[in-house]
């Protein structure tokens, strides 16, 4: 049952010889460096434990029922209002919009519940100290848990790809819209996940971390445009409409709801700057977001130019995500070595 002493030498001397040699990036060159950057045992552990319970199966079932229901209602609406195939053609965009909105709302509701318990739960169960006692750095632990949560969300989004294909077949949506939607969901999800992670590393208890995470989600979603409208109403009484210019416009664009509205609105305007346009502009011409729509869907980012609002949201929330992630790592590092 026991291994012979000679055969077991590698296990034994791991910290002294093998362990150190493996960590040295100079020895194996670039591939070793990359593997040491990517290496993260926390991801596999999180996913494995997550998939084991019945929670995930229940979550997936409920989620698919909701998205499927939205898809069914959207499709039957289209089918009822059009008498033949020719008329149905080009109506995919409304189905696409409905599905995209449903996915965004579901994902926003799932993320805090998924991320908030990730570190606070380990603390509550008494496993965090054992994890911190290993050579895993806090940054790796935080990133590992976030990646695991995002992977699950990616799975949820992918699971409704068939429904999006129906919208695609109906016409009216293109590759560009799909790319935009994926980019938007990815950044919005990361932002929300990073804020939830900050709550998770800062608070001792799972319920507290969960409540604070959902509050953060509400503040992120509704706070900016509420504040922007109040600001506008105070600054220019009588015309409480935010026009996408000035500080109010930028503030408003922080909210993923504004971004989503701009992204999914079929009359959305084209900005002169932006993120995706330079990259996919020629590759995939917009089908929904044709230029010339109302200016409330553009945001003036000062020296950066006039961006589509949803792209401004993408950029701002990306910065918020990175900030929250960095702060989470700092907080956990402090916890690791008080």
């Amino acid at each position, binding site marked *: 049952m*026991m*291994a012979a002493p000679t055969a077991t030498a590698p296990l034994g001397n791991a910290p002294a010889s093998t362990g150190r040699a*493996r960590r040295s990036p100079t020895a194996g060159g670039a591939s070793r460096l990359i593997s040491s950057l990517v290496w993260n045992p926390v991801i596999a552990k999180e996913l494995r434990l997550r998939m084991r319970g019945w929670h995930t199966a229940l979550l997936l079932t409920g989620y698919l029922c909701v998205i499927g229901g939205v898809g069914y209602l959207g499709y039957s609406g289209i089918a009822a209002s059009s008498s033949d195939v020719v008329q149905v053609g080009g109506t995919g965009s409304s189905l696409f919009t409905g599905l995209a909105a449903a996915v965004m709302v579901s994902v926003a509701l799932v993320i805090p519940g998924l991320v908030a318990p990730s570190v606070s739960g380990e603390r509550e169960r008494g496993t965090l100290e054992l994890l911190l006692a290993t050579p895993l750095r806090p940054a790796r632990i935080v990133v590992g848990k976030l990646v695991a949560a995002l992977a699950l969300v990616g799975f949820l989004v992918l699971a409704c790809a068939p429904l999006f294909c129906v919208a695609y077949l109906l016409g009216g949506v293109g590759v560009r819209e799909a790319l935009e939607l994926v980019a938007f969901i990815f950044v919005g999800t990361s932002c929300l996940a990073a804020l939830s992670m900050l709550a998770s590393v800062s608070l001792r208890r799972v319920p507290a971390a969960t409540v604070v995470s959902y509050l953060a989600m509400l503040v992120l979603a509704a706070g900016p445009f509420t504040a922007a409208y109040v600001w506008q109403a105070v600054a220019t009484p009588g015309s409480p409409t935010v026009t996408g210019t000035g500080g109010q416009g930028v503030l408003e664009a922080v909210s993923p709801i504004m971004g989503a509205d701009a992204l999914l609105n079929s009359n959305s305007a084209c900005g002169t700057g932006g993120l995706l346009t330079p990259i996919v502009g020629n590759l995939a011409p917009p089908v929904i977001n044709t230029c010339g729509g109302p200016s409330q869907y553009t945001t003036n980012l000062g020296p950066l130019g006039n961006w589509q609002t949803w792209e401004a949201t993408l950029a701002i929330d990306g910065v918020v995500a990175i900030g929250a992630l960095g702060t989470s790592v700092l907080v956990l590092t402090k916890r690791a070595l008080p």
Partner: protein
Amino acid sequence: MSASLGTVAAQSGLTQVDGEPAPGVALRAEGLVKRFGAAVALAGVSFEVAPGEVFGLAGANGAGKTTLLKVLAGLCRPDEGWAEVAGADVATEPVRVRQLVGYMPDRFGVYESMTAGEYLSFYASCYRLPRQHAERAVTDLLALMGLAAKRDEQLNALSQGMKQRLCLARALVHDPEVLLLDEPAAGLDPRARAELRELVAALGEMGKAVVISSQILAELAEVSTSIGILHEGVMVASGNAEQLLAGSEGLEELFLSLTEREDPEGPAGPTTGGLAGEGTGEDEEGAATK
């Protein structure tokens, strides 16, 4: 666990630390101070442990044992003083310290829905053991702890004592040079405690430095080659177990005489002063003569 635990441990994946007691010390602390707000948990603790030495740490509740072990495990930064574990400074190189140390906390939780095998494999991967070595280490350690039959059983089906043994296996999974065990015997049945003592002795014979805290002083005295008594954050006595216990009837009596609460002379009484003064000197001797 099998009866001949010592030999089993020797045959397992755990390695002998090279031959003779290595030169120098495995673990050294100098004037460690740790405060929590106004409370002083450690008030200048100095001691050292040589490879192959089993250092028994005794002390009343709140004496600072857990705090001391956390500082040594690189999990708590000392306010003053310094400590070195296997050549790594706990304050400036905590990650390296964590690689070299096996730490078992006094209170801990487990991932209840993991199996015993997965549990150890996960920690093996945290220490970046190559997969094959990790698998062998897991098999060996489960056998060593008498948990081989539980390999594929979820941890919520294990008793508290079994989890305790699993956690001890976890501390050994990367074959550390220094072991810090915080009350590992608490909650174990008499047989498991006896086997734990045997295992600790075997680890010492392999040349590993072991610091073990316990409230069961008779058992602590039996397993330790040197002993330290912490009282209110001060190491009031430390040194070779035989020398330290020579003048008294046992560790319990020595402990009670050194840590009297109401005695105005307190821990600074004549007997204590002598012992505390000689403490580190004896410690070094103990290490050298080992």
